Each structure stands twice: as C-alpha cells, then as structure tokens.
C-alpha cells in the first residue's frame, strides 16, 4: 500500500477496528459472563436436519463452496465440524464434497479429528470427504449427481458459492432435502433464499461458529465486530453531515490536475515524465466562487489526499548498468 495513494486514514480506521476485535477477544477470554447472541434460525435447524437424516437413514451432504483455502472456507469447515460431531453421535453418514485441493486436505483432517475426539474413529469413512473437481461446473454436476444418487436428507451449503448455488439448491429440493445455506457472495444469497429452507445472510455466516460453540474468544470477536459496525455507522452519519454541509457552501479554490494547474510546466515535460506526474494535482484560485465538487470535500480528501508535484519528485541513486552478457533476459 502506498500512503500517498490511499491516505493514512484508511489504515488508521482499519487498525482501530483490529484493536476493537482483539480487545474484545481478550475481554471475553478473561471475563466469565456469557454474552448474548440473537437467535439465528438457520443454525438452530442443524440438529433438526441431522435428526431427520438419521430417521430416514439417508446421508447429510456438506459443500464448502468453490473458493480456495481462505477465511470463508475455514469458517465453513468450522460449522461442518459441528455438523459432523452431531452426525457422528447418531451414526448418520456424511459426505463433504470439495472443489479445491487445499480445502480438501484441511477438510479431511478436520473431519477425521472430529470422529477421533468423539472416540468413534471406526465410524469415520475415508471417502466421506471427497475432492470432486476444481472446474466450477464439473463440480456442480458431480455434487448434483451425489445429491440425487444418495438422496440426501439434509444439505449444508456454506461458503463461497457462485453460479452453481441454485443448481445445488434446486437439485437438493427435488429430493426433498432440508437445506441450510449461506454465502458470503451477496449476489448468490437471493438464489438461496428462493430455494432453501434456512439461509444465513451476510455476516451471520461468520457468526455461526460463535453461535454454535459459545467459545469466549469467538463470542468476543463477534462483539468486536459489532463495535466496528457502530464505528462505520457513525462514520457514515458524520460523512453524510459534513459532505452535505460542505457541498452546500461555495469555495474560491479548486482542486485540479497538474496539467490544468501548471500548464506551462506540464507542456515542458517529456512524455515519460508526464506519465510520472499525471497523478499530481494542485489547488488554484477560481475566477468566481462556486459550490464545492465531490472531490473537494474534506471526507474525499481523507481517502484521496492531494498529491502535489513536489511529492512525486523522487531522485534515487541508480544501479550501475550491468554488462550485456549478464543481463540475460533482455535481448
């Protein structure tokens, strides 16, 4: 990141949010008081769904989306670990279909660990976690086939889903499965809402592990996130107020590109230098006052600082030219 590009403000705000989250984790870890989390119906339905699968003698199918190994898929696997724990207690068969090799490796470890911790390693089926394909629609076809063939009683679709979301949801619906779904991709949430029984919307997905386990660290982190939301909401209100005020006032100084502020300097530059100073801006007095433009408010400037020509003038020592034989790459 370059501070001149994006300003210090973004970094400071992010660091404040990091502090909020970490301090609340610390607070929760030390404190004894159990914190309140509002009811999330989709997560309450997990036990019902597994119970139904047990009664019907059909498997539970879990899909952590098609994303790579990142925070989203790790969170999905956290929830699946909880599902597997309950399923293991009832000897309900599970299938976890994965589209990414790295997620597959971690998923295998996690599921085996769950059975081991429950003391039921003999119930663990090595093939219950399977890599299907890393091609989006080959994966969609493979998982749909599994849902249809195995006649899944419950499906858990949690993670990064794209166009395949509705294919899974409708296929599972056609075999009468109870479905709990949630995606961090907001564009896919409407499809899940149309086709699934329970949907985790937005950050409910990230709240899942705290909700299910009530581990203080996770709950504390959730409280920290709420503090951050309050900070953002305050920021929006302040931004709205200051922007409205400033844009209704007149200014006699305009923020313009260097080419407008100092045309004589600009035309004297070589083409190569122009490319360096293109980002430069300056302020010039206006002939007559006018209302402020969008890029002349203080909030805009917080995120897009004024970079003057002098800021971009950098003279650095140069590497000695390498002998031609040693450069290799350029011919």
């Amino acid at each position, binding site marked *: 990141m370059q501070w001149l590009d994006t300003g210090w403000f973004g*970094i400071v705000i992010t660091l404040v949010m990091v502090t909020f989250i970490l301090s609340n984790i610390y607070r929760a870890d030390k404190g004894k008081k159990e914190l309140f989390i509002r009811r999330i119906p989709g997560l309450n339905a997990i036990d019902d769904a597994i119970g139904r699968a047990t009664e019907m003698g059909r498997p539970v199918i879990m899909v952590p989306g098609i994303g790579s190994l990142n925070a989203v898929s790790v969170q999905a696997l956290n929830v699946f670990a909880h599902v597997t724990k309950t399923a293991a207690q009832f000897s309900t068969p599970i299938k976890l279909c994965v589209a990414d090799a790295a997620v597959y490796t971690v998923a295998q470890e996690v599921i085996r660990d769950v059975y081991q911790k429950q003391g039921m390693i003999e119930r663990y089926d090595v093939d219950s976690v399977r890599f299907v394909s890393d091609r989006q629609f080959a994966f969609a076809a493979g998982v749909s086939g599994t849902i249809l063939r195995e006649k899944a009683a419950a499906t858990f679709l949690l993670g990064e889903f794209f166009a395949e979301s509705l294919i899974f949801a409708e296929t599972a619906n056609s075999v009468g499965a109870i479905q709990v779904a949630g995606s961090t991709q907001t564009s896919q949430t409407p499809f899940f809402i149309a086709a699934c029984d329970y949907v985790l919307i937005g950050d409910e997905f990230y709240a899942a592990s705290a909700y299910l386990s009530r581990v203080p660290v996770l709950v504390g982190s959730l409280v920290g996130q709420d503090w951050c939301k309050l900070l953002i909401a305050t920021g929006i209100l302040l931004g709205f107020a200051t922007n409205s005020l400033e844009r209704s006032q007149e200014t006699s100084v305009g923020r313009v590109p260097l080419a407008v502020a100092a045309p004589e300097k600009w035309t004297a530059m070589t083409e190569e230098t122009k490319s360096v100073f293109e980002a430069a801006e300056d302020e010039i007095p206006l002939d007559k006052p006018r209302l402020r433009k969008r890029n002349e408010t203080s909030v805009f400037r917080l995120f897009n600082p004024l970079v003057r020509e002098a800021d971009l003038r950098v003279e650095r020592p140069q590497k000695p030219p390498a002998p031609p034989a040693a450069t290799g790459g350029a011919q």
Partner: protein
Amino acid sequence: MIPLAQAPPITFWGVQPGSGEMWVKIVVALVVCLLIMFGLTFLPNAGRKAVVWGFTFAGGLFYVLLWIVPTPINRGPSDLPRPGEEFGFWLQDALPHIVNSANILTAFLLGLGIYSLLRVHLGRIAKRQPDREFSAILLVCMVVMAGFGYADWIMRRFGEGREKLELMQNWTPVQYAFDLMFDGLLQQMDAAMFSMIAFFILSAAYRAFRIRSVESTVLMASALILMLSLLGALVALWNGGVDAMAVALNLPNASVDLKEAHFLNNFKLNEVANWVRSFLQVPALRALEFGVGLGALAMGLRLWLGLEKGGISA
C-alpha cells in the same frame, strides 16, 4: 538507467526460460521440498500444529507489512533505495515470488485431489458398486484429457515447426483430438450446466416466490419493477406513455423529442428502477458487504494470531 522498454534484469530467482540452469534449479528445489516434507512427517502432532501456525503467521505477516509499510512511489527499473526505503523495496520485490510460490504449492496440492478421485472411483469399480460405469468413464476421460493436453502442450512449446501449429490447417491428430475434447466437449458441457440455472430460476420462482407477508410483498414489488425495467420494449412503451401524458397535461418543458425535465419523468420505468437500485438495493448490499468484510477481518485475525478455537484448531 535501463530504458523502460527493457525487461528487468534476471536475478537469482528468475532464470532464462528453457535453459539448463532452469531445469537444475527445478530439480534441486523439488528434492529439497520433498526432503522437508518427509522430515515433517516425523514431527509429533503438537509440533505439526506449531509448524502450521508458524507458516500461517509468517505468510500473514508479509501481507500485513506490505499493506502498512509505504512502498516506494515512482520507482524506476534501475532505482536503488534511498535511506529508509530499503524495506519497502524489499517487500515490493518479494511479492511476485511469494505469489508464485503460493501458486506452485496449490499446483502440488492438486495431486492430493487427484489421489482422492482415484481412490473413490477405483474403489467403486473394484468393489463392483452400483454406478461403477460412471466412475470408469470419469477415470478414462481424466487420463485421456490429461494425455492429449500434455502432448499438445509439448508439441506447441518445444516441437519441430511449432509456429505452424497456430494455423488449423497444420494441425496433427493430437491438436484435433484435444480441440474436440476441450472446445467441443468440456466447454460446451460447462455452458450446458450454466444454462440449466435458467430452468432452475424458473422452477424456484414458480414454487417459492410467494406473497406471504408484508416483507415478501415489498420484495415482489421491487423485483417486478427491476425485471420489467430490463424489457427494453416495455420501457419504451411505458416511457412513451409518460411523455404523452406530460404533453397532454401541457406540463412546463414537456417535449417528447427532447425528454426535458418535467415532474412525470420520475415515473418513467427506468427512472423508478434506478431509484430502487440506488436507494434500496445498493445501501442494503453495502451494509451486507460491511458485515461480511468485518467477519472476514475478524476470522483472518483469529487464524493469523492462532486464536481460532473452533473446529479446525481445536
């Protein structure tokens, strides 16, 4: 100063493509990595966890530093760092290598995925389970596709007269077979799977899109406005009606040709849809994105600092 049009000089980390040095470095790196992996298998469980966390922390730390430490502006290809800029230069130089290393690791993990596929499907065939014929088809397709893909790549990259292969008339049976499988089958099957979504949207809409409460009525109304606004013919008809009404009512500035500002303009279908998008949909999406972003931030922090005490690290 090296002119801009010239590629940066090759360092220890990059070698001349196709040179003997490249192959030596690849083999040495492979052997070293295999030895490290072999050594790691002897570690006890707790030790493995420490290694995993150590790697996670180091990887995370790199990106955090990259984000916080100011990287040099206007850096020329042969610039040396000024005092205080050394670390920024180093971080910037290291980034492509970190990205490449991550890509290579991911490629190796694919091997584990293929192993899973082979185990599941060979097992099904060996145990004579139902639907084993599909497993056989899958395995045959996998081997044939990989075989022809590799042969095609070798011919195009290193083969005699490889430039000629750019033109279809010079293709050999290998190129025809690979084209048939890739463009003719795989791509088309991908497209077929994607187009199935249209059918599923219809059945989901028919089955589930019901007016059961005030919320669902609002949802339905806004969905209808947005769907109708996509129909160019209907929008033209509707807006034409609004313009005609403005003229009939003799509103100031009303003119069908120039569509100048008059109050009824607000009721044009594309304007109503724009309003719904800008003032209902976008704020809601933004709020959701804030929540998701914060969730990812918190989760990332917990993983990075080893605070995650859920399914994975428990």
